[in-house]
């Protein structure tokens, strides 16, 4: 039995939304964050992101494929899960999930297809037998790689990125809305919630790419494009500043207003969430990467490659921790305080095994990387001869970007 300080409503002592509901926004955050990076390249012509544009898109896709799993694992009746899509009750924020998720999946899958179309065709031409049949089917029967066809591809990619970006933002903003629109819970109920979720999604997405880009470069013995790394660090810094500012603002406004709920929330932060909020989310995951990234951004010219790489990697890993602790503090923290506003329950400890346990959470985090690995094997995330050659596979998105910066 959990221990209670003060008075909690007797049904409020259970943490109904478990670790899986922490994982859900964490994973969706990577989807949105990685997509923002690929959009910076495809849509806004940020040439410096070219080396990670394809990786970012594949990452977004890989995480999207597992985004619904934690929800499904959490349900008391997983077999009825599809009812959310088949018979949605539209006044529910949660009913929007099916529509948003599936339409975003379609847009992202289409965009992936257009970006990798040349690669698919090249592979179909290169391979034999079953493999050839697979790529032929994946190419949807058209082997046209004429400049005109490629031009159409580029335009399609731009349009899809244009549709995909607001959808990715909505998909994640909506996750924040699920919490922000619960008036029963003062720790959740703020219009800032979707914005904070969205910005921290960008933080987690960019941070993941910084780590993933350097790691894959090391594994594949490819050089890390320092300009790209600097740019990623710069944007990470920018989004981290925004995120921390808003997260602090939320608290400061509550404290300054001396709202009815502040008494219990201040106690929550000072006792139950002291470690996960103040230490991890604000100091280790917030302040320290803020300083590290400031060094990378402001002293960029003077940094040796290895220093830059180390600083940005450490900062990115801490940012990943920051975003996870933020999800944890919101989801779990909100359930530690009773709606009686008079009591707190003892900290929640997730089970180790079982459907909603720690091991399952780790598996959920590993699956996207397995998908990424398969994706790389099947379609190839890295262009051959990255930087120079790759006449066929590489020039695609660059065209689109040039189009963007010119038009």
């Amino acid at each position: 039995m959990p221990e209670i300080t003060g008075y909690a409503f007797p049904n409020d002592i259970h943490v109904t939304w478990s670790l899986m509901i922490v994982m859900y926004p964490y994973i969706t955050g990577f989807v949105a964050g990685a997509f923002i990076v690929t959009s910076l390249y495809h849509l806004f012509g940020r040439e410096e992101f070219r080396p990670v544009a394809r990786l970012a898109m594949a990452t977004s896709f890989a995480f999207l494929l597992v985004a619904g799993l934690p929800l499904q694992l959490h349900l008391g009746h997983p077999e009825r899960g599809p009812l959310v899509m088949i018979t949605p009750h539209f006044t529910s924020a949660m009913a929007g999930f099916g529509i948003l998720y599936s339409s975003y999946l379609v847009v992202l899958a289409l965009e992936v297809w257009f970006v990798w179309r040349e690669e698919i065709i090249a592979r179909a031409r290169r391979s034999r037998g079953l493999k050839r049949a697979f790529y032929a089917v994946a190419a949807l029967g058209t082997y046209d790689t004429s400049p005109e066809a490629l031009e159409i591809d580029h335009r399609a990619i731009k349009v899809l990125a244009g549709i995909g970006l607001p959808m990715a933002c909505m998909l994640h903003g909506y996750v924040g809305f699920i919490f922000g629109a619960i008036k029963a819970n003062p720790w959740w109920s703020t219009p800032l919630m979707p914005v904070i979720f969205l910005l921290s999604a960008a933080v987690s997405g960019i941070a993941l790419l910084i780590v993933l880009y350097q790691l894959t470069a090391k594994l594949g013995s490819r050089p890390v494009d320092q300009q790209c790394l600097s740019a990623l660090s710069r944007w990470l810094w920018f989004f981290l500043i925004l995120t921390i500012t808003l997260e602090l603002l939320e608290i400061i406004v509550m404290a300054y207003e001396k709202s009815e709920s502040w008494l219990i929330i201040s106690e929550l932060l000072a006792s139950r969430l002291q470690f996960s909020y103040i230490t991890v989310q604000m100091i280790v995951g917030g302040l320290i990467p803020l300083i590290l990234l400031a060094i990378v951004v402001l002293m960029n010219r003077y940094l040796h490659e290895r220093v830059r790489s180390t600083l940005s990697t450490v900062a990115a890993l801490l940012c990943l921790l920051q975003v996870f602790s933020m999800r944890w503090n919101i989801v779990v923290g909100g359930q530690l305080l009773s709606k009686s506003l008079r009591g707190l329950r003892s900290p929640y400890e997730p089970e180790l095994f079982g459907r909603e346990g720690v091991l399952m959470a780790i598996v959920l985090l590993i699956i996207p990387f397995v998908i990424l690995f398969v994706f790389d094997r099947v379609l190839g995330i890295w262009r051959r001869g990255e930087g120079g050659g790759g006449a066929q596979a590489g020039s695609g998105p660059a065209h689109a970007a040039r189009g963007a910066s010119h038009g």
Partner: protein
Amino acid sequence: MAGRNDALRVIQDCQAPAGGEPAAPTRREFLGDALKLASGAVVFLAGSAGAAGGAQPGKQPDEAYNWDDHLYAYLIDTTKCIGCGSCVRACKVENGVPDGFYRTWVERYLIGMEGSYVDSPNGGMDGFTPVQVGFVANKSFFVPKMCNHCKATPCIQVCPVGASYRTKDGVVMVDDTRCIGCGYCVQACPYGSRFINPATHTASKCTWCYHRITKGLKPACVTVCPTATRQFGDMKREDDPVRKAIEHERVEIMQPHLLTEPQCYYLHLDKEVR
């Protein structure tokens, strides 16, 4: 049922084309119809899964009972409660409420100038033993709590599949053949009245003993209350004492600032109660 009709219509349309000679459908038409049929079938299957048993939204519980003739309300006079816990025990027995969860509970308040103390050991089920507090308690009282059966309830609003619903006679219920157990309603209820039943893995809550009230009985908690703290009434009956009290007395509701329009009314509530 709409799904079933749609599915049937599509089948009939396919079987009986207009005109004597059955015209072969084009590929486009065929694919279109197949798509309609498939989506109809999915909706139909979803409907039949939900229709397997239990109370149904939009369906009356009993033919002899007309829910258009009733609109229930609940009245709690906090000055009368003695904290015996009979109501909590009766509810548990009547509704098979699992241990550690409560469809109704009783809170004890001890309030002084220097502080306040609230508790509800085991939901008040075993009554209350004396307690020592570090301040002079000038007043103390008991407050029975339960689902407020709100008219504008957030729990129904947030249910992603429509498993939570409000009957025409004003009772908020959960269709546990349809509930997916997501727990969103548990989070959305400001009063802590809902929980996920560990046996059924669905949301559970007070139903005002719907199986009793539709037979003309009172909810179990009202029936056993020795002091008439808990009263149950029908707002559609002009001579109903509960309706009269709500109409003429100064009644209060829980957390009025949330605008959920509770149908559980309180007499003589203290400002400390939330």
